């Protein structure tokens, strides 16, 4: 899979504050790339740089193979749609006119696709109502429609589900999945609602304090955050050979702790431990979420620094 966006060693400094530190990232073509990080971690700054709203202090990036230092980048940006922080729509224009304005910005002369776009984001019945009178969910959907004008290859969405009610979140999720599957649009998305993000993303990048902590695919993440039973035992060393013999998937998590990923009953686990002559001190279900994984990652980093 080719990378549609490649970021190389980007740093951004505002006065004395370093917001991004040598960020490098590859966003695969056709992926839904989730950018996970706390407030002020640098997610929005990174997205603003990619969309051309801000310039990096150092480093560069490329979109569809065209470097940010190349003048052609302006043309490539025509294949990109975005919502940064809040939907950029004119409150005193209707949904149709907001889309028409974006078509004009893109230099398109045919507006035939506008009704289809409005239908996609379920705003086809908004009529002449101006965007200022829209609910937050409607505004967000209009923002998505504006970003989709000109059928972009890349969609950059910063917190698109912020402030939406549960129904709005589900609606937004369905729209984004449709866009990704039907139009093969690559989506770079950030969200605070990590559980929601985990239902969408095919790839993740974890960012904290301006640094990328880890990038991985959804499959890799699933392997890392899958359900497990955490066993506290008298000796991990003696237990492992028994687990190996019985094809039990496990991970040693300390001198006296082991995580078991295979589906195995507590009684069988205890029986295997007895077989190894190891005493089981406690058994606990360990169900790590994306949120938990991220927090662990941040905690590890803070422990290191």
């Amino acid at each position, binding site marked *: 899979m080719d990378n549609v966006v490649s970021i190389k060693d980007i740093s951004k400094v505002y006065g004395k504050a370093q917001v991004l530190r040598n960020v490098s990232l590859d966003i695969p073509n056709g992926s839904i790339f989730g950018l996970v990080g706390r407030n002020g971690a640098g997610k929005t700054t990174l997205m603003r740089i990619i969309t051309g709203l801000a310039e990096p202090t150092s480093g560069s990036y490329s979109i569809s193979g065209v470097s940010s230092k190349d003048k052609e980048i302006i043309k490539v940006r025509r294949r990109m749609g975005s919502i*940064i922080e809040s939907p950029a729509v*004119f409150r005193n224009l209707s949904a149709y006119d907001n889309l028409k304005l974006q078509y004009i910005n893109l230099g398109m002369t045919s507006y035939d696709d506008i009704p289809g776009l409005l239908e996609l984001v379920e705003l086809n019945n908004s009529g002449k109502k101006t965007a200022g009178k829209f609910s937050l969910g409607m505004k967000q959907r209009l923002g998505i429609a504006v970003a989709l004008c000109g059928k972009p290859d890349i969609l950059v969405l910063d917190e698109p589900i912020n402030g939406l009610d549960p129904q709005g979140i589900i609606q937004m999720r369905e729209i984004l999945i449709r866009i990704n599957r039907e139009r093969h649009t690559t989506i770079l998305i950030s969200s605070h609602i990590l559980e929601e993000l985990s239902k969408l993303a095919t790839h993740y990048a974890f960012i904290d304090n301006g640094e990328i902590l880890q990038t991985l695919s959804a499959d890799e993440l699933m392997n890392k955050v899958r359900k497990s039973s955490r066993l506290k035992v008298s000796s991990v060393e003696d237990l492992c050979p028994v687990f190996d013999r019985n094809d039990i998937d496990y991970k040693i998590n300390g001198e006296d702790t082991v995580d078991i990923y295979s589906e195995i009953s507590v009684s069988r686990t205890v029986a295997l431990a007895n077989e190894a002559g190891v005493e089981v001190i406690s058994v606990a279900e360990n169900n790590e979420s994306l949120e938990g994984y991220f927090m662990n990652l941040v905690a590890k980093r803070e422990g290191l620094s």
Partner: protein
Amino acid sequence: MRFALKSSFFRLFRTRLFIWVIVFSLLTGIGVFNSVCGNEMMMYTLPSLGRPRFFDNDFLILCLKDLIYVFPFGAAVFCMMFTGSDISFRAVNNKIATGTPRVMIFFADAAVAALTALFSVIVSAAALFLLVKFVPVKESVEINSKVILTVLFVAVIVMAFVLFFTMLQVFFSNKLFGVIISMFLIPALMSYPGHINYILDQPYRYSYKDETSGETVWELNPEYVGGVERNALTFSLELNPYYGVLMREPGNAKCAAAAGAVIVLSAAAGALAISRKEFT
């Protein structure tokens, strides 16, 4: 540039801002006519329609020049609603993110704003002309070179304000802050000639009668400003648009040139500001 211009025109017409511009221009024309009739000619406007004999080209020019007092306020509000909204609503982000060069975005907005200002002045001037033409003595009012020059003079001044306010909106990002600064600048410019005239009118020396000797004593006035400073103040006064109006001069080439310089400098500063700006 073509797309950016088309986009700016689309916004101007679709947001009904253009209708407000026409309404403002017509009301300003009527208001100025009324004000000049009342203040300058000491007569009531409405009963005077169709009756008095005072309306001639000088009266029309007087009215046209007085537009300079009202239009900058309208220009400040227009720039807030046009360019300010573009930035405040983050709609400008859509243009940048989809590859419209930043400088083009500013120039398109500035060009549309300047053209709207020109159109607005022409509408007001036409309204004034028609109002003046209502009176029976029609032959005393005609569109001559002096009237056209005055309209152009007013248009250049208003365009300078528009360009400057557009630049301020780009510079400040917050449209309300931009309009407040703009609104403060107008009265400052208006009061400038009065303040400078007070300084320039200070006598070189003054006299008083000594009570003991009974003789007239002459002393140098410490508030007198002379030399280069006096020349600089006089020059700055001549550049002020409200000085020309105040002095009722028929034309003011220096002021028009200064307005032209403001247009060029505001365009350059605006282009620089937008190209360096970090958009949120």
